[in-house]
């Protein structure tokens, strides 16, 4: 690893007692299964999440693999229509509720938030552990449902199909999602309370790292949107069990009401997925261009703005569902509004890169990939928010490509960036840099090849959720599947070398990137109580200019 500058730490007024002296850290402080399953240490809980979330990612990815393989031929020769329905439902449910929503908050957020605000733990450590158990209960239940026969409703559970017509295990699936929902509510609660109450001395709101701002914004959504999802899924369950329900047109009920309540959660949930990713990008971009973020307050408030405005746009998923035209008008307009804070972020990251001393380490490669892919995803989102165009591409592969650009091109890239960035801190080991860069490139190329053809397919009229298609679409589908196999290799690489690095990676220094955040001021891996000495903060989070200025001074002095 190239050392970037002399390890200078402008963040704390007192020199932190670096635990390079002590060999005891959170990983080896105690041993045994019990010390992990009953831990209240946020860092260990983050690792528990890391393992379970990765498992869910693999299972969801396998479902995606089968979907893509089936779409190699127009006649869908691999699986039956019924199995195909169950496959895309499993893929959607697992990836959305059990991977994308929890992944960054629960793994990286859980690990980094207390470290970054200079706290010893989250506000409610036992609640944090309880969230993991809730997550595991939900995940176990959903896996049981999927492997014992599956559900065929899609991840959206639209009524009346989910409440009346479907013959699969809808109710257990609903219960699993409600349980996992409470896991994310409690995580959000913990984050919000911790940020308010546990900041280190001197850590004012505007000295918070932008990752914390984005986690805070995410938590707002988790807290205020997830209960609505829980309630509406309970209503569907009631309707399904008793056969008398709220969304039943036979009684005068309105299935579109389900969609309103469902998207009140599920649209903001998109921002649960992307906001923490944006926070990671802010950390990585500043660190690897050695510059303060351009327009700190704009980026910080853009997160909050996205969280709030994200609640005002949900019915743009329902333009052709039969809602009032006036309502559609309002929601279309508001959907355009939410692009503003997202654009602010993209421009500010780009401006941060300008004249920075950019180095292309693995996290930076992922972050740059994120910016490009997220921009494409965001702009096609605006196309979808336009009422007229939406009618043309509604429920086609255009939509699929759009949200995969945000979710996979955006969020998974950002997660990869964050995972590599904090990997030395989490494990105390460096990942192999060369392999990391190769993986980043492969994932980028594979992703582009998978999803760009889908934009074209969708625009030409290939509908989503169909296991067969018109033969004219085959070439592009084959391209997409080819891209997906490259993507699969890209994801298999980090899985392999990150595990390899646990034993064979070189030992990480406390601050391998010469980054400025508080989390880099303690040992790698950190001790159980995070900091040997309570850190005190006296400047902003990205004072890289200050850092290099002082480094230059040091050199001058030596001369």
């Amino acid at each position, binding site marked *: 690893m190239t050392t970037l500058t002399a390890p200078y730490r402008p963040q704390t007024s007192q020199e932190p007692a670096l635990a390079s002296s002590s060999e005891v850290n959170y990983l080896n402080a105690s041993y045994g299964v019990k010390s992990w399953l009953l831990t209240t240490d946020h860092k260990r809980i983050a690792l528990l999440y890391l393992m379970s979330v990765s498992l869910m990612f693999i299972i969801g990815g396998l479902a995606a693999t089968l979907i893509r393989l089936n779409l190699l031929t127009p006649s869908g020769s691999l699986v039956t229509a019924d199995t195909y329905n169950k496959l895309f439902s499993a893929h959607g449910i697992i990836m959305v509720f059990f991977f994308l929503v929890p992944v960054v908050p629960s793994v990286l957020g859980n690990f980094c938030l207390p470290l970054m605000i200079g706290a010893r733990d989250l506000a409610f450590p036992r609640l944090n552990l309880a969230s993991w158990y809730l997550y595991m209960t939900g995940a176990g239940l959903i896996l049981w449902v999927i492997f014992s026969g599956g559900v065929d409703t899609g991840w959206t559970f639209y009524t009346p199909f989910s409440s009346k017509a479907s013959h699969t295990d809808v109710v257990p699936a609903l219960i699993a999602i409600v349980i996992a929902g409470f896991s994310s509510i409690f995580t959000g609660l913990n984050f919000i309370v911790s940020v308010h109450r546990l900041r280190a001395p001197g850590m004012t709101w505007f000295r918070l790292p932008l990752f914390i701002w984005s986690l805070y914004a995410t938590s707002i959504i988790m*807290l205020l949107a997830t209960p609505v999802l829980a309630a509406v899924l309970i209503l569907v369950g009631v309707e399904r069990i008793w056969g008398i329900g709220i969304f039943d047109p036979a009684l005068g009920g309105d299935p579109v009401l389900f969609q*309103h309540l469902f998207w009140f959660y599920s649209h903001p949930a998109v921002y649960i997925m992307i906001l923490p990713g944006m926070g990671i990008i802010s950390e990585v971009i500043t660190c690897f261009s050695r510059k303060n973020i351009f327009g700190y307050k704009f980026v910080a408030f853009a997160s909050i703005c996205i969280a709030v405005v994200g609640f005002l746009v949900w019915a743009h998923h329902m333009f052709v569902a039969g809602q009032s035209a*006036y309502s559609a008008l309002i929601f279309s307009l508001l959907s355009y509004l939410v692009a503003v804070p997202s654009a602010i972020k993209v421009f500010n990251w780009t401006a941060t890169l300008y004249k920075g001393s950019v180095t292309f380490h693995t996290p930076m490669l992922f972050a740059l990939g994120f910016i490009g892919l997220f921009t494409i995803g965001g702009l096609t989102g605006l196309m979808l928010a336009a009422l007229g165009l939406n009618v043309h591409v509604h429920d086609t592969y255009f939509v699929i490509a759009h949200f995969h650009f945000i979710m996979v091109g955006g969020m998974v890239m950002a997660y990869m960036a964050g995972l590599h960035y904090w990997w030395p801190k989490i494990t105390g080991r460096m990942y192999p840099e060369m392999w990391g860069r190769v993986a980043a490139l492969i994932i980028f190329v594979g992703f582009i090849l998978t999803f760009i053809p889908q934009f074209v397919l969708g625009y030409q009229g290939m509908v989503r959720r169909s296991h067969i298609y018109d033969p004219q679409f085959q070439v592009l589908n084959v391209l997409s599947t080819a891209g997906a196999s490259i993507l699969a290799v890209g994801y298999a690489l980090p899985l392999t070398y990150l595990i390899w690095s646990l034993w064979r990676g070189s030992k990480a220094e406390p601050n391998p990137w010469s980054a400025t955040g508080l989390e880099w001021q303690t040992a790698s891996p950190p001790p159980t109580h995070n900091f040997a000495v309570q850190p005190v903060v006296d400047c902003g989070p990205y004072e890289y200019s200050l850092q290099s200025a002082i480094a230059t001074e040091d050199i001058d002095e030596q001369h």
Partner: protein
Amino acid sequence: MSIDKALDRKDSGSRYYAVYGVLIILTIATVGLSFCDLHAWHTIVGLAIATGKGALVALFFMHRLHSARITWLALFAGLFWLAILLGLTLTDYLTRAWLIY
């Protein structure tokens, strides 16, 4: 919380009984009014009284008057987001009849 602990020593909690009395009177009022013919106003009146009762419970029983300012944030966030949910959903239902395709 601990703001007026010194006062609390002498405090017999009599204000709780007073608030309780008002709550009971308001309950009798709201039930009684349901027997009067208010036409379409039943829900409005009922919700107004309920809001008054709710405010009493929040301000006194839940110590809204004395607890940290920060907790107002949580309260208002909950109500604000409920308003978003209700308001924007109703933009659909209240305007559906305006335009028949």
